[in-house]
């Protein structure tokens, strides 16, 4: 019991320490004002978060893709360090992270075969994932057809999920959206099962609430996208992740009636998803991510459950990485600093 309490406290302390090294809004603003990827790389190299990962680079010649790959690796190494540091909670979280990354790679492989650009799979494959994954990710890149892919995935969980769709794709056009939906549904189901199995008591209740809130926000985005494609609320529900916190069918129906982001924000506030920000959000994705981020930050500071705190840290780090990548992309295309800042979720 004491060991568990010690482990809990140490994971909480470590999570908060890692969070404390996050790039501040002022630092992100400074990063936005860099004029080239080289300058951005130089700037990032001097931040506590990315210093170690970028210590050996040559900023002047670094390629954007390589910089982003190194940033991915830096964040992944944080999760890996938690796995080594804490043998209890972080281990199943780590498995969930690996599953999510594997899912992304399987989808890239499908997309590559569909487009006839199978090389894109191997270039986008994060090297750090190869040794951690139970899938033979390098061989997966050699698949030139859906039949090859089906054969390579057979016997894996991805194979059993995708088999009918890949079989169908051998003779007709592949339904990538359905592949994505099935894979992510399975990912969330597996994660939920792991949560049920590995947590108990108040920690389980709290983590479930945080997890389902984040799922709700992702479902809001799906719901609004479906509306743009002319789907009905019932059809939209079928495309969503099959878990709900406060987003019942009535709420979905109401959300799909909202004409703009402001009214969606008001509707979400009525559901209890509020934001302290007074900023205007250009897209619903930015709004939901902002609501989630505020909640994760608050929970990370206040929660006393290590699993909840660690989950919030994972989400905050993902958001930070996403922000940095957005900035690098913006710099690459010469977008003014102010406009890049408006795209970020801070």
């Amino acid at each position, binding site marked *: 019991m004491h060991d568990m309490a010690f482990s809990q406290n140490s994971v909480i302390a470590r999570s908060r320490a890692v969070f404390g090294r996050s790039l501040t809004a002022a630092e992100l603003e400074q990063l936005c004002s860099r004029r080239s990827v080289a300058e951005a790389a130089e700037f990032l190299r001097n931040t506590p978060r990315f210093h170690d990962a970028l210590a050996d680079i040559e900023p002047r010649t670094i390629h954007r893709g390589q910089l982003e790959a190194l940033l991915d690796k830096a964040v992944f190494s944080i999760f890996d360090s938690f796995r080594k540091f804490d043998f209890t909670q972080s281990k199943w979280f780590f498995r969930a992270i690996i599953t999510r990354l594997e899912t992304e790679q399987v989808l890239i492989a499908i997309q590559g075969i569909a487009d006839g650009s199978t090389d894109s799979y191997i270039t986008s494959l994060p*090297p750090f994932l190869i040794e951690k994954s139970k899938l033979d990710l390098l061989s997966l890149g050699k698949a030139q057809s859906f039949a090859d892919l089906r054969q390579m995935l057979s016997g894996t969980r991805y194979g059993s999920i995708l088999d009918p769709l890949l079989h169908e794709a051998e003779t007709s056009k592949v339904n990538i959206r359905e592949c994505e939906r099935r894979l992510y549904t399975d990912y969330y189901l597996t994660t939920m099962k792991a949560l049920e199995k590995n947590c108990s008591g108040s920690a389980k209740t709290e983590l479930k609430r945080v997890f389902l809130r984040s799922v709700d926000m992702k479902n809001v985005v799906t719901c609004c996208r479906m509306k743009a494609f002319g789907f009905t609320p019932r059809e939209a529900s079928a495309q969503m992740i099959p878990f709900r916190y406060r987003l019942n069918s009535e709420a979905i129906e109401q959300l799909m009636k909202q004409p703009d982001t402001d009214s969606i924000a008001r509707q979400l506030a009525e559901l209890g998803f509020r934001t302290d920000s007074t900023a205007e959000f250009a897209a619903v994705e930015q709004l939901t991510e902002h609501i989630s981020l505020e909640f994760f930050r608050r929970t990370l500071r206040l929660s006393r459950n290590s699993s909840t705190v660690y989950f919030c840290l994972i989400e905050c780090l993902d958001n930070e990485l996403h922000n940095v990548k957005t900035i690098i992309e913006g710099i690459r295309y010469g977008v003014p600093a102010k406009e890049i800042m408006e795209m970020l979720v801070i």
Partner: protein
Amino acid sequence: MGIEKMSQISVEGSSEQIDNALLICCESRNFQMTDIPDKTSGGIEQNPWSGAYETLRSTAEALGITPEFRSHSGIAENTPEEFRQRIEKINADVATIRREHEEMAASIRELRQTDACVKHLLGLDVTFRELFELKYVKLRVGRLPAENLQKLDYYANRCIHFVPFDQKPDWVWGIYLTPSDTAEFADSLMKSLYFERIRLPDYLDQDARTTDEILVHAIDDEEKLDCELERQLSEYRDAHRDEILTLLSALKSRTDCYELRKMALISGGRFSFTGYCPTRLADDLANSLGKLDGVQVVIVPVSRKNPPADVPIKLRNNVIFRPFEMFVKMYGLPAYGSFDPTPYVAVTYCLMFGIMFGDVGQGLLVSLLGLILSKFTKNGLAPIMTRIGLFSAAFGVLYGSVFGIETLITPFFHRENIWRFLGYTKQPETIFQAATTLLIAALMIGIVLIVLSMLFNTILNFRRRKFGEALFSVNGVAGLVFYISIVAAAAGTFMFGADMFSPAYVICLLVVPLVVIFFKHPLSNLISGVKPAEKVSVGNFIIENFIELFEAALSFLSNTMSYLRIGGFVLSHAGMMLVVAQLAGTNTPGAEITVSTVIVFIIGNLVVMGIEGLLVGIQVLRLEFYEIFNRFYDGSGKDFRPIEISFGSEK
């Protein structure tokens, strides 16, 4: 001494004069501007000076000139165009030298990188010329991220052959070979794996070892040329330093003044802004502003009884107490019209620190360190160290302790009349034998400080006409009577054997004050004639007030006991120095003094000073904030932030 009296100043005039008016206010360094509350005009135009300022600033930084403020009256009337011409000339001169310097630096960097790569290829036993002259095979030299090496297997059948020469944890240096007709494909593929190609200059056609030697010589030559360019830049900097700093100061003044327009009201060719200035300096500022054509100034002293909510606070203390303003600011500035506790903090802090850290040698050393730090740094703690060190030395004289040696000066308690007065039948040899007396003395100090704090609170509340608080609160007259009575009774009973807890004493001096505190709110309402805002049920009233009363009684006890730490630290200091003496081997009479004894003694003293000095400093501050300030002080004031032109901040 205390809180500066403030005056509200309103400035009005023709809008052409706004920048001059703002500049005078900035230069006075005693004017805090306030936002116009009912400002309706839209955003102001783009600052016409900021572009020129930023350009010149970056040029100055490139030259290694740190911006500092200079008088710029000679160019006060220059127009933006005149500034632009002068800046362009400086920029053009600097840019020429810098361009050459940057090109040279880039060339050196490239050569170094090439050499670093060549050094990794020393295993190559053919010349580069032979390799590059191959007709049907193309080859590229460079480095590949080590983790991407495993991906190369995937391209095994794509006519790319990578030959690694050297490997570090993150990178693999080597050459890849590909047939000429697939070179374009191979290049794009290797680029997607983040292969960093290094282009070798044509003249490097020897083997790797010879190439390395050629590159080392080339780097040396270019570095010499680079030094020459740096010398030219340095000469230019020395020759134009004054001119650049003057221009920079003039531009900074204009840029900042233009930014300050956001806080002013500009409409119909007129401007108006308001702010606060210390009353004693308001006339001087008004006179300076009045010299501007068509500018009118109105001064309204701020009332102490009914000040505006946004009036800033500026503390004004003499040179002895001034450093302790830092502690007051740390807790929160006093409200306008109340009292500045800085002198009280200064005296109590120095006294308590001196008592807890009493040592002549260490005290003087702390003082000296404070003096040196004050001279070379702007650390706010340095002047405090100078003062508390002297008190520490003074108490060290009383304790007879010089760097922990207690035989150089006769301790105060060794005098016969003193130890007899303290009730000892024989002279205490060490401070530890007088521990009880010491702890009682610490408690007495605490009691005096608590009573003083309660007195302050009572007087302040009378001055603010909060009679309810002054008479019936825990820190008012009722609390004061209760506390003094219980302390006197306890002292009389336990120290002098007189039973003071008679029924009349208990009822009149202990029970009645507690009842008064219990009924504080209704009694306050009664004498002020105010009706309570909301009705409270009898049950709630009893529960709330009982808990408050219980907490107050407990706080008297805990606050008093808290001062025991004063005595505790005296003992701890003596104990730590005893350990140092034991480690150094000087605790026995006639001990031999060796080099190692001296070293251990010095290190021991430094460690004790570092650890204990810091601990005592923090503990005394804790006593100030929790036990003293809590009883009378409300740090709700806002800091006085005068507008000024400074290179330290952009506003």
